[in-house]
């Protein structure tokens, strides 16, 4: 099952490599990973997505919690949550295709953020599924380059992850 694990940790060199090490040591793959400081500059928020059964995830979260720099951790997939990923994508846009691409971008509520005579650069935010769907609709043949931030997530409602 796909999981979104969100971690609040000390913003210190070395912290990230310890988190990643726990996964690679066990041969678990990290699908996506994002990390940036929070409103408190001494803390970073790290969000990662991975696949695993309950037992694997329990083991990995217990071991993540043991890392000295990890302050708090939550498996967002255990409750209602919002997830978003940002994508920048260069799409071939010539002739009749220009209008077609523009329409698709509008349907997906994306924005064209850069334009040349033959290329649109599209910005799109949403769940990972939505980004996949956009690429699927445009078609691999039209897509020149894709860059995705990886998933960020937050719990719905009053629940907060803070110290």
């Amino acid at each position, binding site marked *: 099952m796909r999981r979104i694990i969100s971690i609040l*940790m*000390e913003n210190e*060199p*070395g912290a990230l*490599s*310890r988190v990643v*090490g726990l996964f690679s*040591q066990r041969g678990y793959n990290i699908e996506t990973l994002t990390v940036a400081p929070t409103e408190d500059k001494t803390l970073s928020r790290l969000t990662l997505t991975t696949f695993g059964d309950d037992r694997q995830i*329990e*083991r990995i979260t*217990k*071991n993540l*919690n*043991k890392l*000295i*720099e*990890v*302050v708090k951790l939550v498996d967002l997939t255990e409750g209602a949550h919002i997830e978003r990923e940002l994508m920048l994508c260069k799409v071939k846009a010539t002739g009749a295709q220009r209008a077609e691409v523009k329409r698709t971008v509008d349907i997906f509520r994306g924005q064209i953020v850069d334009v040349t005579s033959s290329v649109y650069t599209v910005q799109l935010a949403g769940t990972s599924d939505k980004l996949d769907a956009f690429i699927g609709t445009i078609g691999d043949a039209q897509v020149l380059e894709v860059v995705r931030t990886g998933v960020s997530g937050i719990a719905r409602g009053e629940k907060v992850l803070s*110290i």
Partner: protein
Amino acid sequence: MEKLSGAEMVVRALQDEGVEIIFGYPGGAVLHIYDALFQQDKVQHILVRHEQAATHAADGYARATGKPGVVLVTSGPGATNAVTGIATAYMDSIPMVVLSGQVRSDWIGDDAFQETDMVGICRPIVKHSFSVRNVEDIPEMVKKAFYIATTGRPGPVLIDIPKDKTSPLVKLPYEYPKKVKMRSYSPVARGHSGQIRKAVDEMMKARRPVIYAGGGVILGEGSEHLTKLARLLNFPVTNTLMGLGAYPGSDKQFLGMLGMHGTYEANMVMHSSDLIVAVGARFDDRVTNHTQKFCPGATIIHIDVDPATISKNVRADVPIVGPVKQVLEDMVAMVEESAERPDEKALERWWQEIQGWREYHGLRYETNGDGPMKPQQVVEALYRATRGDAYVTSDVGQHQMFAAQFYKFDKPRRWINSGGLGTMGFGLPSAMGVQFAFPNATVACVTGEGSIQMNIQELSTCLQYGLPIKIININNQALGMVRQWQDMQYGGRHSQSYMDSLPDFVRLAEAYGHVGMRVDRIEDLDAAMEKAFSLKDRLVFMDIYVDPSEHVYPMHIADGAMRDMWLSKTERT
């Protein structure tokens, strides 16, 4: 405020932490620190002959005293030589602080002379690591390192120190913090009282209970309360290899060690139990055999400070996250206050059944009459010669298992061996650490002719510091444990397990300035042991030739249940 260089800060912080002894080896990257050490006399530095030995010595010191062991090594090869010892301490949860030198910070990452990414190498084998970036951070970093190493589930902590951060030219104000507080690290201080109550209820209901106590009881100073609880309830007790001494080995409620080479009765009791009280033990694969066949009828109470060990290998029915000492103390109090007791009749029947198992096997072995002596006889002679009251360190192999089976440890911190990593070469240097901690104590190192050669250079350190260790070399002229597996699983094909061209250990010991003794015949053994242990201020190397064909039994049958064992070369359960 007083101003100190980084090197002086390191040494002063050790003093302020109460460190009396450190084990190390000098080199370019740590010369400033060595110079600061030279100019004081509160912290004694022990010069080993190989950095691996420094870590094992610090480790032995820690295991014997409960205080953290401290190591100082230079960058590059000095640091990498220490890696095996750090991993050894990590696997057995031993508190240790390792200071490693590093190249100048502006050279890091450029393949500078004697540069290795020690923090990177050690990431999976330390509880935590630090790298000094600012000189002024040193006091707090040292304080945190000791705090992390010694609290919660103990473990080694590394501080990597670039040479420029110890320069005598930069002096900054020094103050050692009185306390540390870390928002991201707070080991559990108390077990949940509701869970403890639940566990006590289960104990009262039990008809076939057993206490399975591990190294955590020793690490967490819980032996006294464990013994009290077991006696109050009249429960049988078994110890892991790491837990030996946590419960008195000669007590009638003691079943011996459990697991792969555990006693017949301990493994039978575990398998047939209806309640297992696991205390500071981590359900290691050397204990459980196949986890799916593990103790089918047992309810499991698991007490451990580290939540990650609970339900890791075997699911716990009553998990208790907390320090053994407090949890056991609360349990004792609850039992004492309660009028309830487990069903006496049921327990009596349980003890009768246990008695049957004890009589059926115990730790039988056959002697050879006039032929070569058996390794078990050597350990029994050691037990007699030391009146069961020595510190015994061990290397890794058959001799280790025989020592664990046949030396009865009545006190915690007396049995010192590498269980989790199984590091050959651990025995002699760890014995040095013990002897430094207790200069007047009897310290014996049980070893094999394979293992002893992995750190034999330390005989020189022993001479320099006058350490009167007694080395009991159980010489079976083979890598016996490997050979046993080859006998049992590889059709007797002894691939590379034969120790050819052995040195004359007696002359070797003498060349190092010690006393050497060789024993070949059983009738000489006791007298030789008495003689060796009467030489109170000399290191004696006893080279004792034993039957090379002996195996360690009982031995779990791979992938079976706990009760599935080989009991000798021909008998199985």
